[in-house]
Each structure stands twice: as C-alpha cells, then as structure tokens.
C-alpha cells in the first residue's frame, strides 16, 4: 500500500488568534515495502505529518492518498477505521496509552476494535507479546506493574496486534537503554524483512537512518528541504551540520580519517562499510 502526499498544507486552529501553520506544500511518497525515515528538528512538523498518515489529521489543502483512499480537506470523519487498521502508529512514549487491567486485554484492544473475535484477539495478543520479546507469563499482569521498557514493549505490541500494513514509529526508542534500543530496532527490522511491513521512522538518531532506512525526508519548519537515499543525503556533510542534524558515527569517523589524508570515493555510513573500505584501501596499499 503506497502513501502519497500531494501539495499538503496543514494549519492548526485556522481563523483564530492561535492559528499556526505547521506544514507547507509537502510532497512525498512512501512506497509499499519501503523503510522511510523522517528527520528534522523538534517543531519541524514531523509529528503533524505523521498524523496525516492514518487520517488523524486531514490536510487543510492538498491530498493524501493512503492506498485506495484519498483524503482531502472535504473528507468527513466517517469510515476512516479501515485506514487506521492498515496504518498503525506508535506514538512517542506509547506506554502512556495503556489502560486495561491486564497486558493481554490491552494488546487485544486494538484488534477487537476492528472486529476480531475475543478468542482470536487473545491468540494474537499471545503471539505479538512473544514478538516484542516478553514471555507468556506477562499476559495476566497489570501493565502498570511493569518497568518502563516493558510497558513500551506492551504498547508497541498493542499496535502490532492490529496487523497493520504500514507501521509508523515516532522515536520508538526514546529513553531506552542501549540494549533495549538495539533489540527494539532489530525487531522492527525483522518485521520489515520477513513480513514485508512498510516502515516509517521518525528519528533524531542518524545512525538508525544510516543502518535501516532506504529513503529519507528531511523536514525544516514544515517543509521538505531535502530527500534521497541515506547515502545521497549523508554526502552533504556541511549542509547536515549547518542544519544541526549531524551525521552517523561511522561517517564522523571517516571525516576524521579524511582530515588525516585518507580518501573516500563515497563516505561510508555504517561501521561495517567503513571497516570494509579501510581493509580495501590497506590491501591496495600493501600490494
């Protein structure tokens, strides 16, 4: 399922003194099966943009096509549920959305809203919990007795349980320890690879962009200011520093090496690529 933005504008509270324009002429495409990253400063419009992905917000101008459905400013709020089933959003700090007495009920809540039977929803809950790395013993526990990281997993399981075709992640690893961060990103990567899940990731971590994404949109003050594959984007180092977005750790290291005289045809983005490049150049030197 493709998602396409065409000349999308969005204004909060139009025609009041609190009017605030958040998006300007956004054009972007999220292709089926892709891993798209959205980067940009806080306040650049990322969160507003991602709420358009499942029609929580409607554009004030332009169109958003989500699969077959076309959302325009005139679209009414009825019959949007099918979209919400197909596009799951994990908001920032999703643990704040937990409310049921048990983990099982909370995970089963989403599927049940979309008409899945109780029995089936329970089975889904069991499976998804395993997927996010918690064992069955957690099913009967209250979500409020869990640690922050475990709550995060349960909340993410609640969204995965809806079995969306597109999964939108708004800084899913914010506030997690390095280990938890890696586990979580690996889990999403597996879902993306094994089940062909389309992923949209909002992040400040350039390493994640370099490691996973196949296309990047950079936002600034409500506009798309740059787009391309990570390897295209991260070549323009000066621009990235100027916009205070930064570059991946491996690229930073490569830049240091460049200062010392090493040459790169293309800046490496990941430690692996950097290592390969160093080995290759050393090899050439030896011969």
């Amino acid at each position, binding site marked *: 399922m493709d998602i396409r933005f065409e000349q999308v504008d969005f204004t909060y*509270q139009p025609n*009041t*003194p*609190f009017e605030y324009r958040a998006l300007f002429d956004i054009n972007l495409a999220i292709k089926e099966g892709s891993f798209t990253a959205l980067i940009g400063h806080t306040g650049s419009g990322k969160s507003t943009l991602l*709420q358009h992905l*499942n029609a*929580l917000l409607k554009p004030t101008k332009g169109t958003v096509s989500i699969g077959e459905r076309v959302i325009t400013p005139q679209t009414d*709020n*009825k019959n949007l*549920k099918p979209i*919400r*089933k197909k596009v*799951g*959003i994990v*908001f920032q700090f*999703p643990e*704040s*959305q*937990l*409310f049921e007495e048990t983990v099982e009920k909370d995970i089963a*809540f*989403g599927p049940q*809203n*979309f008409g899945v039977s109780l029995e089936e929803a329970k089975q889904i809950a069991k499976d998804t919990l395993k997927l996010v790395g918690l064992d069955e013993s957690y099913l009967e526990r209250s979500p*409020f007795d869990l640690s922050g990281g475990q709550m995060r997993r349960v909340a993410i399981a*609640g*969204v995965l349980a*809806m079995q969306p075709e597109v999964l939108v992640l708004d800084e899913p690893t914010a506030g997690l320890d390095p280990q938890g961060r890696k586990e979580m990103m690996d889990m999403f990567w597996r879902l993306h690879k094994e089940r062909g899940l389309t992923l949209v990731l909002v992040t400040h971590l350039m390493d994640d962009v370099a490691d996973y994404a196949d296309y990047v949109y950079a936002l600034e003050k409500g506009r798309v200011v740059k787009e391309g594959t990570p390897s295209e984007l991260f070549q323009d180092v000066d621009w990235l520093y100027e916009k205070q977005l930064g570059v991946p750790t491996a690229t930073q290291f490569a830049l240091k090496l460049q200062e010392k005289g090493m040459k790169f045809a293309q800046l490496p983005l990941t430690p692996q690529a950097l290592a390969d490049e160093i080995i290759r150049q050393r090899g050439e030197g030896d011969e």
Partner: protein
Amino acid sequence: MMNKLIFGRYIPGNSLIHQMDPRAKLFASFYFIGIIFLANNWQTYLLLAAFTFFAIYLSKINLVFFVRGLKALIGLILFTVFLQVFFTNGGTIYWQWWIFRLTEYGVTNGIFIFCRFVLIIFMSTLLTLTTLPLELSDAIESLLKPLKALKLPVHEFSLMLSIALRYVPTLMDETEKIMNAQRARGVDFSEGNLIQKMKAIIPLLIPLFVSSFTRAIDLAYAMEARGYQGGDGRTKYRKLEWQLLDTITILVFVLLTALLILLRK
C-alpha cells in the same frame, strides 16, 4: 476539540487592559458582577453595555472571540430568558395559553436578564483573555491574604492553584495525545450511542489519571529536592505592582456605581 474553547484562554497583547495589575482586574470583574444587579432600567443597562464595549475596545481583542465564548452558554441563557419571559406576571398581558403568559414585565425582564448574562460573560472573558493564568493566581493569593487571620491555608491554596493552572495546557496536550493514540487503535470518540460514547472515554480517562498521578509524584519529589518545605519563610519572586492605571480604574468603577444609583428608578 480544543479549538472551540475560547473562554479561559489568554491572548497575548500589550493593550491598556493587558498592562493592568491582575488584582485590579480580578477585583473589578467581581465588582462589575456585583453592580450589574443595581441596573433596573434601560438607561442603566445601556450605560453598563457601553462601559463593557469600551473595555473590550481598549483590550484590542476582536469582538468575535467574545461572541464565540458566548456560544457555549447560549443554552443556559435562552432557558433562563424563556422562564423569565413566560412566567413573569404584571403589566399588560399580550398572550396567554395554559400556564404560559406573555406580559409586558416578562418581556422587559427577559431582555434585561439576557443583557445581564451577556455583560457578565463578556467581562469575565475579558479578564481571562487579557490576564496570564499565573498572574491570576498571584492576584487571588494576594486578595485572599486577609483570610490568613482566620487560619486558612492561603499559601497552600495559591500553590495548588498555580500548579493546577500550570498543568492545564500540559494535560490538554496529554489528552490530545492519548486520544490520538487510541483513535489510531480504532476507538471512535464521536460515533455510537451515549453508552458507547461513555465507554470510549475509558481508554482516555485511565491513562490520564495514571499520568496525572505520576506527574504529581515526580513534581513533589522535584520540589522537595529543591528545598521546598511549605509556605513559612518563603519569599516571592513575582511581585505585583499597583500603578496609576489601576487606581484610575477603581475610580472609574466608583463613578460608574454612583451613576448607576443615580439613574436607577
């Protein structure tokens, strides 16, 4: 949802009304509600209306926002006016049916009640539109100070008030956020019958309660960690300053009262 809520919000500005001391504004607003009951004929109502619109003009805020603030209360106003119009006796009877009776006094009373409502709402909206919530809580604390003599916990009360006011926008944001998260999981807040709608509130309310309590605990610890031990011996950082403008306002209100007494029948 939050878009329609104009009453109780602050519009930044630099008008004369914005610059007034919040104590003067708060006192004046309550005083205005008091003296509005002095009005009992069209001259006095006209005077009060002129005064209110002049105050709105001074605030440099578009009248549209005041009218919008009225919308939320229009049901109550019409209900009261209806009762006044059809259940007041006296004067010429225009129309009569069963227990309903349209009389001369009823109509005038209805109009007066309507004016009274509108003016009170306009004045209190003016207060909240031009005063920062924090200023307002400072003003309340300052005006309540005399009650300390009666052993009332004025400091605790004002602290509660400023914390509560400080967290209104935060809680609004939080509500919006949780609502969105649950909508993304298939909850429909606007569809279905009353019972379904009430049930849909649970996934919103429980997380809100939980986050409020967590936030309260965190805030209490953070306050203690910064040396808070209660009201005794604390100094004030935000000081209110009474200016010439405020004295003038009070004098204008005295003048207004005198005029009202003079004009009333």
